[in-house]
């Protein structure tokens, strides 16, 4: 079955880059633009993993993570922080809340895939076989 990944980021560009990185893989990408939407999508879609930004309007990533970990139905979903903020204390604080991993922007798409692969099974999409040309009609006798 395809993995389901939820990308929570207020930047459409980052969500698009995540989608582009995942294109070769058999997985479903769900999206949310802030923590409040992220909690709603997580409850509805039950993703296998959440990629979570920190600074977002409406509800930031740390608040979303805290609420996620308080919810018995959602607390076991692994979370990877994908953020531009990497200060030592910030990382320690977020790690204590129970994140699985941390990827700092700027990032390469292969770094993202590597982090994801450590936390769930990403299967490459099977190549679609080229259509077999119809056999030429036998010449009429």
């Amino acid at each position, binding site marked *: 079955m395809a993995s389901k990944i939820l990308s929570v980021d*207020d*930047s*459409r*560009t*980052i969500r*698009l*880059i995540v989608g*582009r990185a995942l294109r070769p893989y058999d997985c479903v990408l769900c999206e949310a633009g802030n923590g409040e939407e992220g909690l709603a999508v997580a409850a509805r879609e039950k993703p296998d993993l959440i990629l979570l930004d920190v*600074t*977002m*309007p409406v509800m930031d990533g740390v608040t979303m993570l805290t609420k996620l970990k308080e919810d018995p139905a959602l607390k076991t979903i692994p979370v990877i922080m994908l*953020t*531009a*903020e*990497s*200060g*030592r*204390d*910030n990382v320690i604080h977020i790690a204590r809340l129970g994140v699985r991993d941390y990827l700092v*922007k*700027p*990032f*390469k798409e292969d770094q993202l895939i590597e982090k994801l692969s450590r936390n769930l099974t990403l299967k490459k999409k099977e190549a679609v076989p080229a259509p077999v040309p119809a056999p030429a009609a036998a010449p009429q006798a």
Partner: protein
Amino acid sequence: MNAQAPALDIRHFLNGHLVDVFQTMLSMKATPVSEGPPPKFAEHTTGSVGFAGDTVSGAVYLHLSTEMANRIAAAMLGLPPEETLGESDVNDVVGECTNMLAGGLKSALCDKGYECAVSTPAIIRGTSFAIESLPDVRQEQMIYESNGSRFAVEVHIKFNGKN
């Protein structure tokens, strides 16, 4: 933490960080320019991200020509450089680049004991404007060149009233 500015060379830090952001996210080479006047643009697209804490506050600005802003947006979205993009797409990319610059600076400041939080990005567009800061705010402007176009990063920062 006392009110003295930390031993952080903002100019040096941001020079390295900007080159990394451009190389990693845009596959574009950017080079710090040590001499020359600040770039003048017919039309500006400027990204801004603020940061604030008990001991430090300020903002990071990324000043681009609108043409350059369109080019970096195309690069980040994986489109040809000549592709004309919608304003919201360009704003999102410029905002995200500014966010990465400010996030890096915030992290470096936090590691020096200057805890702060960053804002979400904002975009300013216009043909003629200048950003002025209040007294006691230190200003740094760094100029860069990429593919023959110049652009600038400006940092306004205040450490508890002492700079």
